């Protein structure tokens, strides 16, 4: 009888738990109105980065596409010319597509990238009403131009090689390039 009484009182304790929980703070996030920041290194949408003068970092090597386990990335490289230069060095990514219907956000492409051209943002709102809209093109993925950047194609920083770019020695556009741009 004592055991039964004890187990009964413990069951009554359960009623107290649910009652007390009613007055606790709720965990619900009112999502579309309230957006909580993601974890700092959350794997979100990709971004194709630029050097400080606006040239693209992507060299069209396709290592990201080869690393991709879901076959979500398609890259076509092309040669830079002296008249039309998109990235320092020999090659640039002419076509760059990421299919977000296939991407699993594993980040292996980021590990594969030799120039740190491809990184991930924290953006996670990637829903749409059309399958075609979820294949992101190069324009969708390219990082926006920041202060001091000039949209490619334009020549490299005067008297520099792709190695200077790679080592991070180029910290902005040359004044002469800026003037030319303003014309």
């Amino acid at each position, binding site marked *: 009888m004592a055991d039964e009484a004890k187990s009964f009182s413990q069951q009554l304790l*359960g009623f107290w738990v*649910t*009652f007390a*929980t*009613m007055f*606790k703070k*709720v*965990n*619900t996030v*009112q999502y579309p109105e309230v957006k909580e920041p993601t974890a700092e290194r959350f794997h979100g949408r990709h971004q194709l980065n630029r050097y400080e003068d606006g040239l693209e970092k992507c060299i069209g090597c396709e290592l990201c596409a080869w690393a991709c386990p879901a076959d979500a990335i398609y890259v076509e490289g092309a040669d830079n010319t002296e008249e039309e230069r998109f990235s320092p060095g020999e090659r640039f990514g002419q076509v760059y597509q990421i299919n977000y219907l296939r991407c699993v956000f594993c980040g292996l492409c980021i590990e594969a990238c030799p120039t740190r051209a491809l990184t991930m943002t924290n953006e996670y709102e990637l829903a749409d009403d059309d399958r075609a809209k979820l294949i992101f093109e190069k324009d969708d993925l390219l990082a926006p131009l920041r202060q001091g950047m000039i949209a490619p194609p334009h020549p490299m920083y005067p008297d520099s090689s792709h190695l200077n770019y790679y080592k991070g020695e180029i910290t902005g556009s040359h004044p002469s390039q800026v003037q030319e741009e303003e014309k």
Partner: protein
Amino acid sequence: MSTAALLGQDPGWLILVKGLLIFVFCVVCTLMAVWGERRIVARMQMRLGPNRVGKFGLLQALADGVKLALKEDLIPAAADKVVFIIAPIISATTCFMAFAVIPFTGTVTLFGHKTAMQLTDLPVSVLYILAIASVGVYGIVLAGWSSGSTYPLLGGLRSSAQVISYEVAMGLSLVAVFIYSGSMSTSEIVAAQHKWWFSVILFPSFVIYVISMVGETNRAPFDLAEAEGELVGGFHTEYSSLKFALFFLAEYVNIVAVSALATTLFMGGYHALPGLTFTESWLGGWFTLFWFIAKVVSFFFLFVWLRGTLPRLRYDQFMKFGWKVLIPTSLVWILILASLRVMSQRAVSRMIVLGFSVGVVLLVMLVTTMYDRTTAKAKAAAVLPDLPPPSFPIPALPGQSTVNHLTIEQTQVVTELENHNG
């Protein structure tokens, strides 16, 4: 003037108005109950619950209802079409009928007529409610049977068995009320509780009624008919659109109905809480409606609380509880109560009443100690049988060592073989 006589003077149009008001009350109650239940259960689980449609999500149930009505109405090919359509209608109509005899207020003035908010008053109104509830079971049985499908049939059988079994316990718990109030008329039962609520003087009956009302309405933790893991949706698995909405409506109106009955029979009906009796004359007597609704709502909260706290019972345990605990307990309680009542009516001396009460208490103690001893003996006698070790690995029983018999034997065989060869 008694309430029955007062209601007898109602003109026909007033009866119609009251009927309409009761219908509106039930439907609004259902809408609010669905919303309230979801919000309260959500809070108990640290969620918010529906809060999008209308202020505080109040219109959520209405929006769901409209959506349900616009859904495609499917009738399975194997279904018995006529019965399939009649079943939800039976459920939805009977659940409203119980409200005809529930007194919502005391004497009030409605459109210049002195009356009470109660559609009608029968000398046997509580029996009428029990009868109506039994008719309501037909809706469930027929729905399960006419669906022409296995799970609905099983669900229908389960819930009808459940409702019928718990109706017995419920009926027995009401007998105590009849004995004490000397009437089966709801208004007279309310009047009889003017001094003391029956939930106080007839506490065991009250507890039995509360348990059986949860069983009667197929609600958690007794919602075995809708055990999703076992029976999909129970008797309404094959129902869609408005016919499903009717079952949904019936379920919630039933909850309000049993709560209203509990309020009427045990919680003093529309009377104010003790010590607040002066409020009963406020607003020309209409304030009693507030007390009635407040009591019904607190019963509804109990329903939600139970749902938020307790897991579902196993079916056999549930039936065992109903037949072997609730019904015998209420029978014994009625026996004691009836004896006490007869003694008080015959004006038996106080010493005899006291002696009887002490005797009952001693008898209960004797029975429980004997029960305890026999169960303890049975426990001690139940020694594990001495079986040979099985030929496959098994987890250890309580008190056994965890050494695996098979491995011991195998090692023995291996060592013997080695000795033989070596």
